[in-house]
């Protein structure tokens, strides 16, 4: 039986309940010259620290680390009991003074916490006074956790950056702003999107809200098009709203189609983009080239994978894992999918939903982890959403956010082939 590492017994999340301050931080986390202040108790910084540590390891596992990348310092004003009684604005003033002197920021973004919200600290007034004193932009985002969740913080920060730094200007032909995160400009997913946009002679001149210098942020309003990144679950709502705001303020149209995963979605994405731009011919060229790229990769990897016995292990509910892209990957790989194992973490309802979804694409047997099946023992490769505590087993870990485009698909095929090609009984896990 598979033992899953670090997995909650029951996954019952129906919607996101989170803190909005990390969303604010995330919005400017890699913007050159930005410093973020949480007007909060010290411990509030811990959530963001943990989140950032997760991102760090993810980048490391995917070999996407960019050591040159700027990361905004995150400082908390350190609200304590006495501030919850007497007010924390004085503490915030001291914190701003410290940040200005210590970090010499180009601008500061203040995210206010639940405590600041409950006691009614006038953060905007403090920010305005400090701005006058220090002559740098000091932005205040109301991000009291009890009002919002992570993506609202992200959106609110983006909105304030738009209001503060962008002016209406003439749109520059064929320039694109990417809206969202997706690992930043150096990440393979964003690189993939840039490659796809090149087929339409579109040049990305900014990614917003994060990974942008002040100069780049000011260029956003000159973009002839915004393309939404991410496009999954709750994150879509935030970026979608930012795109709508940019359209309203600066008449920038936006392409609101989720980032493609796998070949079929890439083909559709390119077709839709062609139609959106009125450039169907370029779309057709792009589709052909992408197909050719995929075929070449298949020629390289298929011999190593053909007919390998594979089991797909799923421990994420449907909301967080759409199995279609994973099944498409396995079809392209030419492996022999011998079964699908639903892991213990799924509730009965979640299992049922997942079974229904899987049956749309495959007829392979679906088991539950508690059934004493031998399917895993027979498998040569395991493709899984959760790490299994079996060091002999060869596991490909499927990322929460699926990789983008044909390039992403090829990347996973390459990793799967590498796994299959490991010598003798050597097992281990490869992170997709």
């Amino acid at each position: 039986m598979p033992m899953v590492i670090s997995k909650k017994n029951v996954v019952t999340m129906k919607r996101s309940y989170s803190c909005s301050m990390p969303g604010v931080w995330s919005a400017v986390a890699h913007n050159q010259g930005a410093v973020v202040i949480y007007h909060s108790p010290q411990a509030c910084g811990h959530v963001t620290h943990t989140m950032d540590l997760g991102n760090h390891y993810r980048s490391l596992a995917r070999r996407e680390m960019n050591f040159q990348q700027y990361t905004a310092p995150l400082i908390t004003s350190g609200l304590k009991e006495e501030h919850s009684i007497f007010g924390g604005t004085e503490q915030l003033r001291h914190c701003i003074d410290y940040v200005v002197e210590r970090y010499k920021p180009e601008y500061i973004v203040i995210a206010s916490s639940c405590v600041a919200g409950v006691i009614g600290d006038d953060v905007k007034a403090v920010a305005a006074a400090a701005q006058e004193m220090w002559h740098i932009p000091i932005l205040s985002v109301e991000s009291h956790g009890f009002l919002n969740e992570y993506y609202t913080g992200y959106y609110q920060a983006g909105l304030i950056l738009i209001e503060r730094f962008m002016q209406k200007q003439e749109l520059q032909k064929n320039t694109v702003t990417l809206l969202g995160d997706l690992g930043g400009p150096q990440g393979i997913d964003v690189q993939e999107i840039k490659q796809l946009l090149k087929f339409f002679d579109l040049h990305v001149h900014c990614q917003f809200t994060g990974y942008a210098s002040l100069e780049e942020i000011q260029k956003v309003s000159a973009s002839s098009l915004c393309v939404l990144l991410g496009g999954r679950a709750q994150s879509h709502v935030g970026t979608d709203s930012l795109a709508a705001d940019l359209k309203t303020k600066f008449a920038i149209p936006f392409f609101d189609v989720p980032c493609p995963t796998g070949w079929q979605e890439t083909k559709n994405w390119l077709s839709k983009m062609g139609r959106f731009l009125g450039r169907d011919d370029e779309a057709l060229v792009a589709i052909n080239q992408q197909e050719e790229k995929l075929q070449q990769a298949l020629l390289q990897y298929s011999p190593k994978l053909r007919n390998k016995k594979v089991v797909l292990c799923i421990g994420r509910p449907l909301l967080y894992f759409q199995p279609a892209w994973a099944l498409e990957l396995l079809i392209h790989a030419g492996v022999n999918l011998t079964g699908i194992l639903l892991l213990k973490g799924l509730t009965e309802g979640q299992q049922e939903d997942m079974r229904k979804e899987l049956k749309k694409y495959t007829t392979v047997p679906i088991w539950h982890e508690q059934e004493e099946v031998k399917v895993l023992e027979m498998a040569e490769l395991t493709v899984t959403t959760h790490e299994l505590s079996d060091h002999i087993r060869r596991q490909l870990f499927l990322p929460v956010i699926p990789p983008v485009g044909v390039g992403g698909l090829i990347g996973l095929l390459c990793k799967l082939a590498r796994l299959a090609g490991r010598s003798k009984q050597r097992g281990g896990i490869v992170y997709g």
Partner: protein
Amino acid sequence: MVKKYSSVLEKREVNCMKKIAFYGKGGIGKSTTAANVSAALATNGYSICQIGCDPKNDSTRLLLGRTCMETVLDMVKKHGDEVAIEHVVHSGFANVKCVEAGGPEPGVGCAGRGIIVALEKLKELDAIKDEQVVLYDVLGDVVCGGFAVPIREGYATDIYIVSSGELMSLYAANNIAKGIARFAGRGKVRLGGIIGNSRNIIHEQALLEAFAKRINTSLITFIPRETIVHQAEINRKTVIEWAPQSPQADVYRQLAHAIIHNTDLTVPTPISFEALEELVLAYGNQ
């Protein structure tokens, strides 16, 4: 006509600590009444501690002859963990122990949180363990959880609502009764009665008696409006100290006596605002 009352309270043994709280609409005379009750009890030999739960720090002014600047919260801020009983407990008229919780400046911070922290600190210091009577004088209405702490956390068990016959004063009293009823189910807190503080409204005493009856309590004392109260106040004294032989001083002694011996503690039954309006209207015509 105020019944003439003995100038000396009959002192009876109070076996366990009597824990009292005064609530009522802002400006209705809670602190003046509380200070006079404390002074009346103290001059009769009771050991008493009055705790002002208001960021304005003015509850104990008439007992100390000054505004207390050494509040619990200020002293905690100043001394941190080193804060001691002598920093926060001050001796007033007739050795009444005077404590002010303190709190933020108007418009900043959270006064309710201040009350919670101040009372917790007093408990931690064991500052009021020897008193026969503790009287909490709480700011205004039960506006938030912080101001409900004296009721909620068992600090006070006998609650008195100071009210005039004015509609909004009764409205606040009714709201406070709601707060008491809410917490009565889970603890010993009960309503001791209404303390009528006259504003010279027509049929005021009768109205207050009727209101008290409607919310399942009684008008424990009706304090007539007298200029001597103002005279004492501008001289930073209680009436008990300023004019001990005055009829008004007797009224306060009568109230103190009634409070100390009150066994008629009830769970209040607050009424709707419409019912309150009708009641006030019924007594409001000439």
